[in-house]
């Protein structure tokens, strides 16, 4: 078990390294292949008013004339150990993990990411609780009442849920439910409030994004749970449970649902991991200052260091989620031996 975890941790580190190489290649190798010179790359750092000589100096200082391998090494070292930027009059130290400075704000990227993380976490975990409860409950009832009106209605809505994009359901929800509208369930203002500042305002500011995001996922979970329950409720061990004289409720929840849980755990871990890297559409639709919104803004402004920071941070969550899922698998299904 311990060796397994160690092996998985090493593997996770390898994965992250590969992701960082690919990210680096996308932003530095591909432009060069497309014809960019060290000067044209450096020009993005110095602003529009700089003359050719200043750009030359910047390119040299930023190391764009070095071989790509050296540049990558410097980039990776910055993340692991921090980096020093020599900007002429003095040296600026960027502590680890250093993803560089924003082109626009001149601020380091990492503290920005840490600022954005609680928003995305609030959104992702809140929505996750809703979609698991709603999705699994709907799936169980649908499976037990297969072919009933409830089942058909739920599965039709679920089909809508997986098919409708957030920027549609999100905007519809705002038109119908946001403050000032007939079915208003949100408070005035509506901008994001940190949990620790005011929990009630926090919940109000997130309720629509939660439900909208949860709707998308709950639909998939309902379908998955329904399929799993239909399968497990036909298993021999369900008949055994009934033959023992267990109440139907216990048979369904303790024996049936437990048997259908394994794939759900896997998908759940991966979904949450992915969302922690930023729920791009949801955050943009509701203007939540999370990682997804940060990424979109960075891309729109061609703010390279920010984009790279978000990509790597998101990859980190996905890799960690994968690791947790693998470990959890052995807990959920005792037949899985980790070695």
């Amino acid at each position: 078990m311990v060796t397994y975890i160690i092996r998985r941790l090493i593997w996770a580190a390898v994965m992250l390294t590969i992701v960082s190489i690919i990210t680096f290649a996308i932003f530095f190798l591909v432009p060069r292949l497309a014809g960019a010179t060290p000067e044209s790359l450096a020009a993005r750092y110095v602003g529009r008013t700089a003359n050719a000589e200043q750009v030359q100096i910047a390119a040299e200082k930023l190391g764009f004339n070095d071989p790509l391998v050296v540049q990558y090494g410097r980039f990776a070292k910055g993340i692991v150990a921090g980096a020093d930027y020599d900007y002429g009059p003095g040296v600026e130290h960027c502590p680890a993990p250093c993803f560089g400075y924003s082109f626009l704000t001149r601020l380091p990227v990492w503290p920005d990411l840490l600022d954005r993380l609680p928003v995305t976490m609030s959104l992702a975990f809140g929505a996750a609780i809703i979609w698991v409860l709603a999705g699994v409950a709907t799936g169980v009832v649908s499976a037990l009442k297969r072919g009933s009106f409830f089942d058909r209605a739920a599965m039709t809505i679920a089909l809508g849920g997986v098919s409708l994009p957030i920027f549609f359901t999100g905007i519809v929800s705002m038109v119908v439910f946001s403050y000032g509208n007939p079915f208003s369930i949100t408070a005035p203002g509506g901008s994001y409030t940190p949990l620790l500042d005011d929990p009630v305002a926090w919940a109000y500011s997130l309720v629509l994004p939660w439900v909208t995001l949860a709707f998308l996922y709950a639909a998939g979970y309902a379908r998955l749970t329904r399929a799993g329950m239909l399968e497990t409720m036909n298993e021999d061990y369900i008949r055994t449970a009934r033959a023992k004289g267990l109440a139907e409720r216990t048979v369904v929840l303790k024996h049936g649902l437990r048997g259908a849980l394994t794939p759900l755990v896997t998908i759940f871990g991966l979904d949450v991991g992915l969302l922690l890297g930023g729920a791009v559409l949801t955050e943009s639709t509701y203007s939540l200052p999370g990682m997804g919104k940060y990424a979109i803004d960075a891309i729109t402004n061609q703010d390279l260091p920010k984009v790279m920071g978000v990509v790597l941070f998101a990859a980190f969550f996905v890799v960690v989620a994968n690791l947790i899922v693998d470990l959890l698998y052995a807990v959920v299904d005792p037949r899985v031996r980790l070695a």
Partner: protein
Amino acid sequence: MTFLELKDLRIHFPSDDGLVKSVDGLSFRLERGKTLGIVGESGSGKSVTSLGILGLHKGGRAKISGEIWLDGEELVSASAEHVRTLRGKKMAMIFQDPLSAMHPFYTVGAQIMEAYRIHHDVSKKVARKHAIEMLDRVGIPQPDRRVDSYPHEFSGGMRQRAMIAMALSCDPELLIADEPTTALDVTVQAQILDLMRDLQRDFNAALIVITHDLGVVAELSDDILVMYAGKAIEYGTAEDIFERPEHPYTWGLLGSMPRLDRERTERLLPIKGSPPSLINVPPGCAFHPRCTFADRTGGRSTSEVPELLESEGGHLVRCHLSRDVRRTAWENEIKPNLEAS
């Protein structure tokens, strides 16, 4: 008063293709301490009958009629909730494949404890002790350690022992074993059969053994019921069925049984064809399309459903052939072939 009595039990399932008559007018009696073997091919209604006695078809799509009397109580008309309280306690079941019949995600001990705690209001600790006792009783070594194992960590025979421990945990008066040894190695089969016989004696339970394996019923049963297409076609003591069987289908079953005392060059005498569809049961005697004696009934077997009639001393047969014809055929045509060496 008879301990268990079925009167004209019918269990029919509506399907898109028509009504599936899985059990169609089945009656028998069973006393405490006795063993009844129910024999037949797949789809003859054996398992549906046993699940019907346990009340596991209630609330489903099945249409059930007739009567099931268990210790003075009628179960077909009883509420599903009442039958549930009897399940596991008064009557219990041992299933065919213990690997799929036990929940893969719970330990063997937890599953036995669960069975016990449904019907006994005891602490987990007491239930655990009971589970260990039961495992010990069915011959599982180191029961205090094995109680925490998962079903997949047991061998096939051990799993079936654990399954039996689970079924017996509430001291049931009626035990139904559905193909209890089919999924097991031959050597283990004998051990399990021995175990079941011993336990039945200890618990003085009524035992129903459902199987397609005549060897198993020969080993355990006092009485044997042969089923075909949802109906009883022959019923008698083990001696009746093995020494003087009267139904051509039973002869076929006996002929399909591999035996060591027969020459290897000798072919088995299988029954031709396959069991009939339970939706379109052949008219007349359901067995007539496969019966080599059908032409001796003067056409009645294709037009008239035979009654289950007493041949002699409680030996019941559902066949149009006259008793004399059946006996002559058995003595002269079938028995010599079975015993040929």
